[in-house]
């Protein structure tokens, strides 16, 4: 899976990236976490409230700092 964290560098975005990494380490396997801070790319996903979480090109969450357990749910 390719997990993208959309955010322009606010504290919540960094925290979401960390939580995503924790979630991935729990489910195992090879997955990629990419931080997207290019505002144009963020808008291509139609997201206007950061941080956003995108899994394989699909927007799963916006404007929320999810905890690792919630992210795990989204990845299943």
């Amino acid at each position: 899976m390719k997990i993208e964290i959309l955010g322009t560098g606010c504290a919540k975005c960094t925290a979401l990236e960390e939580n995503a990494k924790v979630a991935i380490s729990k489910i195992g396997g090879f997955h990629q976490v990419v931080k997207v801070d290019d505002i144009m790319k963020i808008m291509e996903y139609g997201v206007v409230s950061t941080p956003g979480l995108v899994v394989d090109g699909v927007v799963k969450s916006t404007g929320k700092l999810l905890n690792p357990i919630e992210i795990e749910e989204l990845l299943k």
Partner: protein
Amino acid sequence: MFDWWDKLTALFVYNILGLEQKSAMAEALHFFLYDTIKIWILLITIIFVVSYLRTHFNTEYVRAYLQGKSEFTGNVLAALFGIVTPFCTCSAIPLFLGFIQARIPIGVTFSFLISAPLNNEIAIALLFGIFGWKVTAIYIGFGLLVAILGGYIIGKMKMEKYILMDVKPMEGELEDVQIKLTFKDRVKEAWEYTIDIFKKIYIYVLIGVGIGAFIHGYVPADFIATYTGGDTWYSVPLAVIMGIPMYSNAAGVMPLVEVLTSKGMLLGTALAFMMAVTALSLPEAMILKRILHTKLIALFFTIVGIGIICIGYIFNTIL
């Protein structure tokens, strides 16, 4: 609503601690205990209710809804959405650009950008807890008026050229990215958010009420009126200017305002101050500066500032 708590704290201060009735120390302590707990309970309740409502709205949904609305209708709707949409200053840039991308007029975007922080859950909860529902309703009502008119005026001034980033308007209609949640999920999310906010602000309430309690007990009743001039012409603009750098401390500032009004500060001045605290935030201006020309930001602050000052004067005159 909190009479029982008033009596209980009075009982504690006067009977159990045995402090003398009417002494400054006893009055201050009674006020402190009563007010802190009252505000805490109201904060938790109201933030929970507001954040539950907000799980039904997200900014992406609002954007899809506002797309293609005519200008004045758009301003009104954007201001109303500002009450129920979760908003964080840190996502002001994607919000602004995303709205423009959806061909939402810049004035409508500003209506939202004025209304959302003005009607933030902390300010509403504190206002309700401290001044009651009437003042809260007045605050929200006139806040909406500032947001609608402010955005409308900015929209009429043709400021599009002051957006520093080139956004390609999208073709066609937007599909909103709605994420489905169950009732249980919404309650859980709202509750976690409430606790999160409460942890961040309870200490400011404590400090604010603490200073307030001191003034309540030790400073004479007409102090403000006597020494700073309760109704001099410059008190409203001064209150607005003082409110600008205080955004992050709204939780501590508001309990103080309560005490200041009881010591002679006029309600219009207090209202203008509180609106300036929430609507004119320096951090937001700094963030927007990355995509907007200083001229546009200055215009934004000036129009909202003038609006708030007018409201302050109106209230000082009629109340």
